[in-house]
């Protein structure tokens, strides 16, 4: 069964450093998403991406964040200058067609720890 993969599984970084979280969505999917989940809290939407551009973004997704689909398979989330409060689990998801509640397939997540 096809699945979304994410690397690394755990990233530790120093405050102020840039990090890039990588995702490989399911191959025939066209819609891509990033979410984050601070430990013990709910899943928070960050951004959705379609046709090489951002479709929607939340208030969390400020200028420190950017997304990119550099090639036909990867989807990345970059945090330019990490803060302590960026420590969270980051989930990538993809879906096959346009709709806010069509089935989204989530990856296993990247745990980001900012020291």
């Amino acid at each position, binding site marked *: 069964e096809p699945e979304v993969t994410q690397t690394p599984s755990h990233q530790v970084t120093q405050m102020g450093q840039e990090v890039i979280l990588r995702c490989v969505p399911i191959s025939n999917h066209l819609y891509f998403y990033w979410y984050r989940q601070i430990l013990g809290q709910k*899943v928070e*939407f960050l951004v*959705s991406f379609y046709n090489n551009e951002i479709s929607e973004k939340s208030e969390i997704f400020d200028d420190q964040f950017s997304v990119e689909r550099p090639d036909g398979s990867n989807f990345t989330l970059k945090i330019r200058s990490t803060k302590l409060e960026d420590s969270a689990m980051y989930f990538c998801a993809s879906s096959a067609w346009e*709709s*806010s*509640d069509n089935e989204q397939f*989530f990856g296993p997540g990247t745990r980001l720890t900012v020291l």
Partner: protein
Amino acid sequence: LAKTTQPISMDSYEGQEVNITCSHNNIATNDYITWYQQFPSQGPRFIIQGYKTKVTNEVASLFIPADRKSSTLSLPRVSLSDTAVYYCLVGDRRTGGFKTIFGAGTRLFVKA
């Protein structure tokens, strides 16, 4: 986006049927109701989606009354492995922008 309200937590025993109700009083005509499940340290997983009446798949059933202001996820004969957080989401399947909002969810704890 319609706001959803769910119980914060529920307890059950193995083999019982569990019903989790979600309120969405401001649901719009084009909105669908979707449920996701999340285990600790994993990403959410789609369970079921519906628009009205009843939907059933191999995992769960979803009951939606005629006014669609609430919905009930029914898990038949739960096992310990069904211990998870269950999220109810409401949104328009047809909009080009898809800002998926998860609420706090319902934490289901299944006991032996």
